[in-house]
């Protein structure tokens, strides 16, 4: 009998996943802590400088700025994605045939890589010949030469809109699944009581979707933390450092300025940020509720 005891076969089965994860993810994560104390360009002899990198990034405000921008982007992404995804999810869960057909088309942006989406939107938003300016000019809004991504006050917001364009299809799929689980009898009862569509939405649909809202929010927030591809292609962190979120800052420091130490400092901040975020989410939602949301899927 094999039962629940370990044997050589089971140890063998565990090894590949374990080795890969330890060698290419876990150990590098720990080594990043060591690297953050180095003055090293990746080629010449590394010099141990202790906390100097850490003091530097916090003193000149770079770390704070990147962290704040990351939080700001998270907020923007939540506002642009969550309410719209919810409405679209409810829309797609409707029984009308055309709604399902719409859903098939809504999904398509998800098939493109962030890199391809970045390239496309950089053309659509081009100040000189971009589609957006051409259309705005044609319908008489503005003078038709707004530099959307070159404006430091607009750039981060525009980036969040493009991220929304890419990921609302995914989130609305979550809400569609959630909305389909709402028992029809609730709606029927509400109609008997004479509730109108708005009352039904706010008193039945919205409360019934609260776990889906939590799930979608978690995915939006944790996903935003590591968005890199799109920002790299669209703005490269600019203009100035208007869109230089943590992931972008880490890449720039390590691979453009070839400053492994500074890049690693940003990497650690990113990792700690992610861990704190996950712990906060767990604290406020709890494991049990996480389970019950899954049942709702």
């Amino acid at each position, binding site marked *: 009998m*094999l039962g*629940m005891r*370990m044997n050589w*076969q*089971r140890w063998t*089965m*565990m090894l*590949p*996943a*374990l080795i890969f994860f330890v*060698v*290419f*993810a876990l150990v590098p*994560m720990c*080594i*990043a802590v060591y*690297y953050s104390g180095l003055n090293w360009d*990746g080629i010449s002899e590394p010099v141990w400088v202790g906390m100097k990198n850490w003091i530097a990034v916090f003193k000149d405000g770079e770390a704070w700025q990147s962290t704040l921008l990351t939080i700001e982007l998270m907020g923007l992404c939540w506002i642009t994605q969550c309410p719209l995804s919810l409405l679209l999810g409810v*829309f797609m869960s409707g029984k009308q045939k055309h*709604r399902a057909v719409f859903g098939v*088309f*809504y*999904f*398509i942006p998800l*098939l*493109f*890589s*962030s*890199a*391809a989406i*970045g390239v*496309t939107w950089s*053309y659509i938003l081009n100040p000189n*010949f971009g*589609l957006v300016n051409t259309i705005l000019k044609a319908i008489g809004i503005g003078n038709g030469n707004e530099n959307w991504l070159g404006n430091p006050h607009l750039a981060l917001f525009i980036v969040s809109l493009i991220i929304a*364009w890419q990921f*609302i*299809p*995914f989130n609305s*799929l*979550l809400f569609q*699944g959630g909305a389909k689980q709402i028992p029809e*009898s609730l709606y*029927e009862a509400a109609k008997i009581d*004479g509730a109108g569509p708005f009352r039904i939405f706010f008193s039945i649909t919205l409360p019934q979707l609260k776990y889906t809202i939590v799930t979608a929010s978690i995915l939006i927030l*944790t996903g935003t933390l*590591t968005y*890199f*591809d799109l920002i790299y*292609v669209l703005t490269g962190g600019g203009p100035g450092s208007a869109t230089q979120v943590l*992931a972008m800052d*880490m*890449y720039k420091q*390590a691979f453009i300025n070839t400053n492994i130490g500074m*890049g*690693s400092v940003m*990497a650690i901040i990113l*990792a700690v940020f*992610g861990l704190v975020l996950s712990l906060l989410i767990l604290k406020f939602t709890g494991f049990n509720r996480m389970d019950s949301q*899954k049942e709702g899927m």
Partner: protein
Amino acid sequence: MAEPQALLNKKNYVRPQRKYSWTNMAFTLFGVIWLIISFYPVLYILMSSVREQNGFLTGSPTWLPTIHPTFSNYLTVLQAGFVHFFFNSLILSVVTVIFTVAFSLFLAYVIVRSRNSAVRTIFNVFLIGLALPIQAAIIPVYVLITKIGLYDSLGGLILPSIAFGIPLTLLFLVNFVRDIPNELYESMEIEGASDFKMLFHLVTPLAMPSIISIAIYQFILAWNNFLFPLVLTQSDSVKVLPLAVVQFQGDHSLDIPVTMAAVTLSALPLLIAYIFGGRFIRRGMMAGFGK
């Protein structure tokens, strides 16, 4: 018990549904507007890709389809090495998915079937891997890959891609392997089946739908991955599609039709797969959520 049910059944208690209420129409309008916002840019990519570069920046209205479509842009892109980049992407994605899913399935089996504290601990370590943004490990990964001489090779891309894909795949598969009833294992044990036999003849067939879902998800992730190729490769011989598209834009910054053809080609396999198996792809994307 019967009374409320009877009430429900009586038609005259339910207000007659107006099929074309204004809220309903507003909601439909909302759906149509989003359809335009979400699908028009895709259409724009396709329309621009068959347009002539001549006159693109001036004159002709670019938001409409052209009356003289041309496929020469696609030829330009293919001649720029995209067939080669396509195969690089394919090799990277297929090999990564096979090993990620296989290794995760092995481990998922052991985690479900063992009451061993060391195994518990190992599972928890992988769960922490889910909470951490592992992209933060990219700098040491770059140094490591360089040190073992795999910088600028497909192997150097595949190894860390497998490692980074394991935590989510593992969590997803554990949830499914757990659902397999214990009696099935026990009856196979009585026949003297080994762990490997149970994995291949019991677990794998039963978990196949979920294996396919998570494999599709990991494939799309690997196909569209940008950070790893950006950091770990540099030469054309190992270039993958997302990187190729961005560099193509850099080389042809004002030639929008050609760049749009490159964008289309980079997503073409997924678009074709979506046309024929959209249901599976949507289910696969949902797998990324965990269950």
